[in-house]
């Protein structure tokens, strides 16, 4: 059974609510004067880290809006070792994203196997002409520098794949090195006897 309330207590409660709200901090964002603090991975704009791009075209093919334009050509790289085979390599000629088509789904960023695409919280790139919203690689490159560091992992989270892979390689390398030094040590231990004999 609800407690019988004093008449007018509801009115007083209402007054208390507004008065309390007045003493609290306001939630208004003074945007043009004060930039908002957006968290990493905010879907503002897509930045391109060119060096990581291998022109695998996965992003362009996965893009639901077909808003990524990639042109490239092949270059042959001379053999690294004498007598080796010449290798061919993709060179990026054009990388453009049409942000008038982009729906900010982030699939390109998810799908990029080489970490060449990133979300940047930068969002002030409105244009007066829709055609000016196609941004080329230099512009995408500039946005790359606005990408904040990713947030720290949760305590107890799984190790990131890159680090796990790197550690595995390092461990393997260390093991191989240890084996090698052991082998040489054994060989050295064996060799003086050889010298003596």
């Amino acid at each position, binding site marked *: 059974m609800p407690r019988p309330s004093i008449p007018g207590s509801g*009115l007083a409660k209402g007054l208390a609510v507004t008065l309390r*709200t007045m003493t*609290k901090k306001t939630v208004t964002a003074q945007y043009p004067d004060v930039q908002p603090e957006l968290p990493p991975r905010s879907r503002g704009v897509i930045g391109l880290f060119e060096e990581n791009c291998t022109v695998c075209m996965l992003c362009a093919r996965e893009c639901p809006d077909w808003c990524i334009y990639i042109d490239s050509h092949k270059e042959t790289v001379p053999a690294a070792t004498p007598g080796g085979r010449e290798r061919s390599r993709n060179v990026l000629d054009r990388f453009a994203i049409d942000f008038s088509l982009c729906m900010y789904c982030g699939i390109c960023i998810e799908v990029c196997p080489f970490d060449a695409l990133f979300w940047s919280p930068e969002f002030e790139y409105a244009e007066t002409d829709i055609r000016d919203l196609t941004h080329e690689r230099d512009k995408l490159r500039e946005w790359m520098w606005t990408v904040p560091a990713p947030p720290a992992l949760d305590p107890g989270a799984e190790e990131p794949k890159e680090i796990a892979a790197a550690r595995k390689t390092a461990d393997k390398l260390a093991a191989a090195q240890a084996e090698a030094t052991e082998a040489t040590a054994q060989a050295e231990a064996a060799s003086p006897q050889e010298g003596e004999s």
Partner: protein
Amino acid sequence: MNDALDVALRLLVVFVVFLTFPLVVGQTEHKVMAHMQGRLGPMYAGGFHGWAQLVADGVKFAQKESVVPADADRRVFQLAPAVALLPYLLVLLVIPVGPGEGAVGQSVDAGIFFVLAVMGIGVLGSLMAGWASANKYSLLGGLRTAAQLLSYELPMLLTAASVAMAAGTVSLTGILDAFEWWWLPWQIVGALVFFVAGLAELQRPPFDMPVADSEIIFGAYTEYTGLRFALFLLAEYAGIVVLCGLTTVLFLGGWHGPWGADGLGWVWTLLKTAVLAFVVIWLRVTYPRLREDQLQKLSWTVLVPLALVQIALTGVVKVVIS
């Protein structure tokens, strides 16, 4: 001092107060309302926290075209804002701010009569506007204004009469001269009734059915633009100043305060008025609008009986004392 100069000076001071105080109340309303809703309110005009927002609004209103609808009653339509605004100026003239002759624009012997009669005229402005606009919504708003005036003038008069009985005079300065601190608890019911009825007469939320924008656009002011519309708004805020000043003088003891009786009485009056103005804004932010029938019910079933009880109480106490 020269008599004419004295009168001119008094009029000038009252006029300046009349022009500035409503703006101060309006700006306070902007800010208080915003913060009560978790916002900041105007921040740009004038630089510091948007202090010049209402000045900017005034400039905007002055630049706008003043349209008179084709079917409107031109004269009445154009006259209505003045009728709505001027009574408050006249009332302001007789409200005593401090003790003595120097702190009142013009002391009138029949102060309460004058004040209540003249304040009633202000509502006529809305009624004229509503009738002359040739607009259904305006007419509805005007009629609601009239209905509201009819039902709320009575409790206002009754409670004012209660104070007059207590003081044995109808002069505002006389009432304040007779004021004792224990009048405060004695007349508290009357004060509440007077204040609420005054709010209703000013058509302030939660009693703003005559201008209920979600029902009847903007009531009697629907057809108004530019400076005339601004005058109506100014009238509302001047009304707040006047109502708060009157409540202060009649019920809160005006210039009487715990200390600073000599020379600083006017500070008390202004302080009490400001606090009341804050309460007016506070009520506006807190409560939703009453329905038209609820409004009438509040007046006739709550305020009028309470006012009568107050009069009875005043009479009994008065007889017991004397």
